[in-house]
């Protein structure tokens, strides 16, 4: 079954077609959400919420549009909401460590990571959400600068300047660990 057929069937209420779409897009959503939030337990919840939202608002999805972009946009928005919630909690409990705690003391133990993956994730988590989102979309997901700008709803110039600044910050964080590589 082609993707177009799957979408049509899923929109018509076919559960198996929708499940197939979930399986097809799990890797993309995981890369986006885990990239944004780190490999924590909340990432799985947000990932599930992405597909629940997709199901809920499938009616408004135009079949000639890209489902990948549509799903990525939902994933980015929900991840940004989760980061805002974390920030609020951090403010309420006055704990500067909370963001790190979310990602490190509640790690998802089912996610196997190498040491270098851990270091890169930790460095990405140190970036502000607006920088993190461009890194995830452009460097991890491989979207073009224009698509990244479209998904985030910002001008292309903004994406370029955020990318440039984000890469300089990442390099600063990662250089001590990747001396021989970076």
């Amino acid at each position, binding site marked *: 079954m082609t993707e177009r057929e799957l979408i049509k069937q899923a929109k018509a209420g076919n*559960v198996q077609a*929708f*499940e197939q779409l*979930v*399986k097809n897009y*799990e*890797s*993309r959503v*995981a*890369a986006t959400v*885990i*990239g944004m939030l780190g*490999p924590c337990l909340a*990432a*799985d919840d947000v*990932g*599930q919420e992405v*597909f*629940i939202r997709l*199901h809920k608002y499938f009616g408004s999805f135009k079949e000639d549009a890209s489902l990948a972009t549509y799903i990525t946009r939902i994933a980015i928005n929900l991840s940004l909401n989760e980061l805002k919630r974390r920030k609020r909690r951090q403010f309420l409990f006055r704990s500067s460590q909370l963001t790190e705690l979310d990602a490190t003391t509640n790690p*998802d133990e*089912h*996610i196997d*990571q190498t040491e*270098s*993956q851990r270091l*890169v*994730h930790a460095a*990405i988590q140190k970036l502000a959400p607006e920088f993190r989102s461009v*890194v995830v979309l*452009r*460097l*991890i997901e*491989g979207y073009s*600068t224009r698509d990244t700008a479209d998904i985030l709803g910002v001008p*292309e110039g903004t*994406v*370029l300047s955020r*990318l*440039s600044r984000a*890469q*300089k910050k*990442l*390099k600063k964080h*990662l*250089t001590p660990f*990747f001396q021989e*590589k*970076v």
Partner: protein
Amino acid sequence: MNKRSLDLLYRSFDAQLSEDEKAELASALASSESLRREEEAALAMRDAVRTSAVRSFKPFFSSRVLNRMKALEKPNDPMEELWKALVTMFRPVAVAGALTLVAILAFNLASAERWTLDTMLGVSEPGIEEVWTLTVLEESNQ
């Protein structure tokens, strides 16, 4: 390595440079070893970020999504709904009542000379004249 060359280098990874800019960057790369090192480092870093991506959730992710969707679609228990509605409706009243009570207690304590349970509750202690009047009234009634 100047700032202009560095900016051009980073822009070259994600945007189309003009012919002039390409030539400028090529010349800067040819003449600056530190810029070449910067390019290598940036490319290695981009590669490390790209390969760091975790591309799956815990096993049985699609089943969890479908189970959660089923749970959301299930009609709720009417008694539970009623209870939730009552809690939602009375919560502001309860909070306002509690705040008023705290304000009254605070006012009573602030205006009392001594801090006792009676003063906190706003019960004034009877003066000697009041006791006398009450006693006389009681006796005259008898």
